[in-house]
């Protein structure tokens, strides 16, 4: 046994506190330590995931108090897969940004601490089994995200970050309101306990709490009217951070929203609401994406659209739908991160990141361009790359649930998506480079990181069975509310001295 789930939080926190100290002694350690921590977390996550798949959910109690009283971490197949995905993405992005801010020690130190905390916070959101603890992790993630968004000094990054912060603090207020509404009714903060007692709540409290949760978590999950900050933040953040937003942070937000809707309350209509809101998000953001002339904004809008699709898939609510949603989620994490990572080399030159800057990069940055194209094909859902399977499973789940109109809508939106991605690919490969632009060769570590993502895309594309078994278990785990409650509430015993 390598460890237990709490080490996903404890070890990086310890490391975060340690980095400033070690940095005084050995400057390179600020870069290496986060990587080691993430690597350890990755190994731990994979080991635990393997174990969970065979023996069932691990519930870890903290501070020796069993669930309704203490905080607990739940490493079920569902949360485990998400956590593993996030840590994997975190590790790859760490590889990519290993030489980030090579000359400026202070900046680099802060970057790595904040980045590690971003990953940890997201993992915490996914693993925790307590709503207030989740709130704390959301704040950890948000503050790191604000700082990372505003990381570059000579851009409009502070503006983006301030927008994010405004909306984000509203989100945390609504979460607090929701939490206190629940607490006032049930006297507990534990998710499983809430789920088992949810019928005791007066309906108006329940609905108000659900609404506040949807708003508060919707901001993190980037649903339509609440996502104005997203394109700005994604576009202004440094490239790897944009990738981390798309690959890690959104996933945590979506997870939190899904957990509230699927497990906590049995309010009717939430599934339909998810579908409606997901479709709206998807349609509007894809429409905005096709009219962008800046690469990163385009990617950000596209990311919104994809997450909308994921929400629709979750909203179908059947096991198939969740399976498809998980598949889409993984594909989006990998594909969109790859796009952000390679895209930031393609438009390295200016702060504006116009799409026209990618013109003719295929000749100068062959590997980066190829990986960008691969990522684009995967994200669009072209077979035989990974995106196709997600899309197909999603479609067939929707068809099983008899939602043909939704399929048609999604497909017509996918058409829009296809057009703007192919436009960029055309520019990369077939246009003449603009003369004032000097291509920037990616560093070796960046190439390794991007290539890893590319290989994952190919592997999943050609051999989806690699993950589909896990995903089936995960979707069963999410749907089986009773088992979740039982797993959590029956764990451990009251430890006494």
């Amino acid at each position, binding site marked *: 046994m390598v460890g237990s789930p709490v080490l996903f939080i404890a070890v990086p926190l310890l490391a975060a506190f340690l980095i400033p100290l070690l940095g005084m002694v050995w400057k390179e350690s600020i870069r290496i330590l986060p990587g080691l921590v993430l690597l350890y977390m990755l190994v731990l996550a994979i080991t635990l995931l393997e174990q969970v798949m065979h023996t069932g959910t691990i519930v870890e109690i903290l501070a020796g108090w069993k669930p309704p009283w203490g905080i607990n971490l739940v490493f079920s197949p569902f949360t485990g897969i998400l956590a593993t995905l996030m840590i994997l993405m975190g590790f790859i992005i760490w590889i990519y940004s290993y030489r980030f801010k090579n000359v400026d020690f202070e900046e680099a130190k802060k970057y790595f601490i904040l980045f590690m905390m971003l990953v940890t916070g997201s993992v915490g959101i996914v693993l925790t089994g307590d709503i207030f603890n989740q709130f704390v992790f959301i704040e950890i993630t948000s503050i790191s995200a604000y*700082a990372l968004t505003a990381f570059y000094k000579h851009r409009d990054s502070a503006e983006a970050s301030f927008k994010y912060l*405004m909306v984000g603090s*509203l989100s945390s207020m609504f979460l607090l309101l929701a939490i206190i509404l629940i*607490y006032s009714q049930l006297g507990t903060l534990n998710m499983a306990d809430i789920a088992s007692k949810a019928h005791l709540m007066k309906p108006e409290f329940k609905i108000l709490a659900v609404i506040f949760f949807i708003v508060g978590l919707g901001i993190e999950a980037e649903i339509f009217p609440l996502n104005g900050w997203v394109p700005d933040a994604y576009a202004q953040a440094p490239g790897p951070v944009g990738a981390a937003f798309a690959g890690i942070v959104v996933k945590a937000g979506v997870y939190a929203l899904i957990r509230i809707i699927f497990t906590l309350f049995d309010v009717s209509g939430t599934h339909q609401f998810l579908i409606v809101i997901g479709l709206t998000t998807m349609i509007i953001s894809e429409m905005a994406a096709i009219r962008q002339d800046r690469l990163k904004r385009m990617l950000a809008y596209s990311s919104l659209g994809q997450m909308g699709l994921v929400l629709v898939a979750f909203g179908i609510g059947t096991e198939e739908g969740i399976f498809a949603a998980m598949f889409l989620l993984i594909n989006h994490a990998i594909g969109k991160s790859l796009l952000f990572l390679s895209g930031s080399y393609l438009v390295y030159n200016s702060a504006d990141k116009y799409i026209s800057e990618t013109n003719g990069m295929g000749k100068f940055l062959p590997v980066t361009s190829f990986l960008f194209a691969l990522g684009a094909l995967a994200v669009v859902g072209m077979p035989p790359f990974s995106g196709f399977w997600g899309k197909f499973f999603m479609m067939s789940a929707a068809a099983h649930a008899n939602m043909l109109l939704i399929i048609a809508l999604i497909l017509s939106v996918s058409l829009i998506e296809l057009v703007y991605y192919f436009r960029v690919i055309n520019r990369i490969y077939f246009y003449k480079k603009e003369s004032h632009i000097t291509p920037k060769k990616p560093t070796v570590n960046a190439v390794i990181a991007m290539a890893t993502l590319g290989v994952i895309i190919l592997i999943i594309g050609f051999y989806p069975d690699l993950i589909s078994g896990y995903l089936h278990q995960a979707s069963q785990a999410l749907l089986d509310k009773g088992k979740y409650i039982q797993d959590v509430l029956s764990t451990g015993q009251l430890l006494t001295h």
Partner: protein
Amino acid sequence: MNFTLFDLKIVEYSFFITAILVIMIGLYGALVKKSLIKVVIGLSIFDSGINLLLISIGYITSGTAPIFSPALVKDMPLTLENIKKLSEGMVDPVPQALVLTAIVIGFGVTAVALSLVIRLYRHHQTLNIDEIKNLKW
């Protein structure tokens, strides 16, 4: 002690009403005021309102603070019954613990927000939120 004033609902709910009003005022400031500093002030007022709401939800009429101070437990054996009796007269400690966390977090967010305001002022030479929109659509 039979004041008619006490029977009015408004008295009982005065804490809730105040909290809601403060929340509304804070939100108004955050949503309407043009100055970035005013926006941050609005958000922090909002925060205060929510904290008040949380604490007042945990309140129990004529309860005591959830502290078993020496004065409270003196010459009383610490048996389960005694503690139970004492604890029934205590206000709920959980919201207090939550608010404690929330205050600190709120402060952290405010600090970050204000440093962003300084950055924005340095960059734009203005604090008017309507002029700070280089990023749009």
